[in-house]
């Protein structure tokens, strides 16, 4: 149980093994495991994807599916932190603009962090330091990477606060986080993460703590800023609405692995994995006529210590018995191409899935 199962180690998406990726960000077979007293927690277990500049990737999944661990892994925040005196075990490759981050010098990664890649966290109240003013925190982020005096940095901070839509930025720059409302704090954090014009921005549940009206403002802001700065953005969320709103590509995670990945339209209109169907069916929708009943996914998400053998989704999958020979319970399915730039990891044949989707699932949504 505590051994890394190397046998099932296959690159999720067919990418060449040569170390010269063309994409701006490329993650290959990323694994993040945490040793605990109860066993090895395989939070991320073989994840691969790539992302171009100016594009947005949405990572969707339930709690404990490994979304946030992936983002912290890319930021290189796992190696620095220790979990109960034991470090996380990370393997795989993360290529950012031609540099491999996992094998790189920690000092080099530290220089990239904040400058090349930045992160927006879910809860701005705990991500911002309560003891320093918003201005001081943005100035610090800027001066860490730019050799400028405090005045210039502060001017830059005011400029950024103005850009993210904080009224009276020259006054508010001296406010403390507790003096801001939830939406304003989130804006301030976005200002802080964008102060160095990062080329990769990771937003981990950026609007989960906010009200819908404020959420709409923040989503609008993220979209506009991306257009303006042309950065690559990864949005991590459990809300399919938010993903549909922002993403070009969608990656659905389940039990630490990618189960489906493809262009947003394809994933929403031609999903090819039963878990994606489940997510779409569980969601009451405002844009459709009233559904009689929601179609929930039975059971609950798997424990990452004891991921079900075979397909991790098999205990909850209504179609687990469609493929022959009990294969869903013994062999872990790999991602296979089901459309152009669209992959899904399921043992059912393409035809079976197409039929189930068009005949059984889609009419009920």
């Amino acid at each position, binding site marked *: 149980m505590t051994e890394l199962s190397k046998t099932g180690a296959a690159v999720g998406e067919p990418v060449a093994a040569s170390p010269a990726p063309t994409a701006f960000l490329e993650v290959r077979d990323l694994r993040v495991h945490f040793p605990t007293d109860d066993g090895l927690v395989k939070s991320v277990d073989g994840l691969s994807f790539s992302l171009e500049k100016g594009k947005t990737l949405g990572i969707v999944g*339930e*709690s404990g599916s490994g979304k946030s661990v992936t983002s912290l892994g890319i930021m290189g925040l796992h190696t620095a932190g220790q979990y109960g005196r034991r470090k996380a075990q990370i393997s795989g490759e993360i290529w950012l603009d031609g540099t491999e981050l996992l094998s790189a010098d920690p000092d080099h990664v530290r220089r990239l962090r904040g400058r090349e890649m930045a992160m927006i966290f879910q809860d701005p109240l705990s991500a911002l330091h309560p003891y320093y003013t918003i201005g001081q925190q943005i100035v610090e982020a800027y001066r860490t990477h730019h050799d400028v005096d405090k005045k210039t940095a502060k001017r830059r901070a005011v400029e950024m606060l103005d850009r993210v839509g904080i*009224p009276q930025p020259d006054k508010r720059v001296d406010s403390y986080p507790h003096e801001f*409302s*939830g*939406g*304003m704090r989130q804006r301030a954090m976005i200002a802080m993460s964008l102060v160095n014009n990062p080329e990769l921005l990771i937003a981990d549940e950026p609007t989960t703590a906010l*009200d*819908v*009206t*404020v*959420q*709409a*403002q923040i*989503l*609008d802001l993220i979209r506009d800023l991306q257009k303006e700065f042309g950065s690559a953005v990864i949005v991590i969320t*459990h*809300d*399919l*609405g*938010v*993903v*549909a*709103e922002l*993403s070009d590509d969608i990656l659905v995670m389940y039990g630490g692995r990618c189960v489906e990945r493809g262009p*947003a*339209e394809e994933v*929403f209109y031609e999903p090819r994995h039963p878990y994606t169907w*489940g*997510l*779409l*069916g*569980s*969601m*009451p*929708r*405002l*844009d459709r006529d*009233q*559904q009689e*009943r*929601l*179609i*929930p*996914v*039975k*059971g*609950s*998400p798997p424990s990452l210590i004891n991921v079900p053998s075979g397909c991790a989704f098999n205990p909850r999958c209504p179609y687990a018995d469609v493929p022959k020979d009990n294969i869903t319970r013994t062999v872990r399915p790999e991602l296979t191409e089901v459309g152009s730039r669209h992959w899904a990891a399921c043992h059912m044949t393409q035809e079976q899935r197409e039929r189930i989707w068009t005949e059984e699932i889609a009419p009920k949504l």
Partner: protein
Amino acid sequence: MSGAAQSDGATLTKTKDVAPGEVLLKVTGLQKHFPIRKGLLQRQAGAVRAVDGLDFEVRSGETLGVVGESGCGKSTMGRLITRLLEPTAGTVEFEGRDITHLGVSAMRPLRRDVQMIFQDPYSSLNPRHTIGTIVGAPFKLQGVTPEGGVKKEVQRLLSVVGLNPEHYNRYPHEFSGGQRQRIGIARALALNPKLVVADEPVSALDVSIQAQVVNLLDDLQEELGLTYVIIAHDLSVVRHVSDRIAVMYLGKIVELADRDSLYKAPMHPYTKALMSAVPIPDPRRRTAKSERILLKGDVPSPIAPPSGCRFHTRCWKATETCRTTEPPLLELKPGQRVACHHPENFEDQAPQDTVLLTAAKEAAELVADEVLAESAETSAALAAETSGTEPEETAEPVTKKAETAPEPEPEPDEPDDK
């Protein structure tokens, strides 16, 4: 899992004094002000007006959904009608009986009839008690011995909500979030309540689990004839579960209507904005930005709510009247009560008032032109239709407003904007 609920649910006995459709709970002028005390003498320096005058009723067998942003007073409302809090003013009548100021002991027999499901399944279950003790507590507190003994009844309740009755001796930490929420529901159902108030029952749960709990609540209502008040911030969940919906803003109900009327033709601008803000899980609709109304800023503080209509600081239709006069909650259409001077999809209530406030001019920039044009059209059409009162006068100002608002450079606005 909801299958279990279906099979065993029928065995729960229905006790009903109020026929379905009759008023079970009636609330009039309900207020709750939390005092803010300052200084050495703890003198009252002000008050958080969490709930500031609510009037509504809940009919037996229906589900009333309550939506609103955080801080609008919806949870306080839930605690007031279950009498976990004492109202500052107003009355709460349950089955025709005034329960507003009943003491703890006088309330106790009523607690059987009114139960609550809490938001956080982690903090609402005592970690040191077994599931059996937790679900059996209501019997102990009320001194009721169910037929066949407490243990048997608890196990039956567990199977009603789709849990394994053999888990009677387990502790809350052994269950997942969705299962814990089911435990909370089993506890609430133990004494056959008439009214169940659920405060954000699914917001702490994962999407796939949310659907399970929503379906369970649905099934239980059907089988036991329960009446629900469901408080939530998620508009799509509320639409799914409710028969009628109350939209709250800063301690007041701004709109109260049947589900379908509310979602098809919202009349209060806030309702409209709130619904348009929900991200639609459809990538093809993303470009259709024209449908979205972005509200500016945050909800004002309930310590000093804006004068007149509380929404006027963020509304794109706000006029002088809105700032000075508070709009009453009126039944403008059958089954649709709205508190607004300038409702959407309806005749203007204050047609003589056409001068937009500065706030409205700013807000209008965030409203897509299509929305403004459309709302002006429908209002004008409706006004002409119901031309009881000088149709020209009503139609004219509305169109004028539509002209001034979406124009890229409205000349008279300039000095105000700076």
